[in-house]
């Protein structure tokens, strides 16, 4: 890797569908992950792990299932919705999966612009399908959109 190799170039090697519109929007940190970020929590790692190391909302199924992630976001007032269309009156998130196992969540920040925390790495802004794919590091496909009224 050359010195001129940017962080975005490095990210693009893992997410080859990332367009030129993508931007890094935060320092790199392992404090929180994509689920926490979509939930608005920048202090904790959210995951329903069986070792009970990570945070998971009380009362939600601690299983790696799309339904469990849906219930977790329902505790924050989100409900399933039809699509990624921008609506100024609501906040939207998208939950990604591979083989029905959740892999990622992103939140909508503007018309056709979404924001994601990439694991232990950066937050980025991106188009909704740029992180999809079947490659090892990509996040599969979108399983579910959810929204809640903007406060």
């Amino acid at each position: 890797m050359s010195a001129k190799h940017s962080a975005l170039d490095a990210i693009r090697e893992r997410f080859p569908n990332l367009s030129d519109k993508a931007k890094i929007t935060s320092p790199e940190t392992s404090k929180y992950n994509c689920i926490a970020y979509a939930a608005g929590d920048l202090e904790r790692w959210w995951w329903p792990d069986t070792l009970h190391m990570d945070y998971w909302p009380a009362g939600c199924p601690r299983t790696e299932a799309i339904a469990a992630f849906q219930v977790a976001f329902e505790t924050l007032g989100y409900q399933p919705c039809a699509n990624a269309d921008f609506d100024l009156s609501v906040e939207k998130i998208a939950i990604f999966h591979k083989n029905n196992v959740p892999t990622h969540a992103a939140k909508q920040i503007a018309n056709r612009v979404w924001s994601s925390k990439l694991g232990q790495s950066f937050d980025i802004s991106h188009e909704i399908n740029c992180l999809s794919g079947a490659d090892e590091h990509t996040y599969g496909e979108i399983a579910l959109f959810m929204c809640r009224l903007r406060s």
Partner: protein
Amino acid sequence: MTKMVSGVRDTGSGGSYDHFLPPSFSDGLHTRYTKSGDDYVQEFHRLLRKWRYETLTSSSSTSMISRPEFKRIVALGEKVVPLIIDEIRTTPDHVMAALVLITDTNPVPERAQGNLTEMANAWIAWYECET
């Protein structure tokens, strides 16, 4: 966790993106490797680099601990506990899960779940009580 221990800090990339590179290209452990009594130390650090590279953009801690590099770290057993403690003093991450599996204990209080810095502090406090 009742004891705060200094030394845990959040670490950024510092402008270097070598951690996005496969470790075989960014470390020197694949050359001039000599067998010694401390082989497990080098093996631990080699596995840790590879594991961190592979899991850098993953949010799933379940996926992280399913990686073969992680399983090999756990298989190294109790002798790598001090090495993991040293790591989480500066880089508190999910390598702490290896401590749970190796020691069969978890000193992290429920209120600290998911807070990697507080989790590392709990493990460091536990280790300093044990040694």
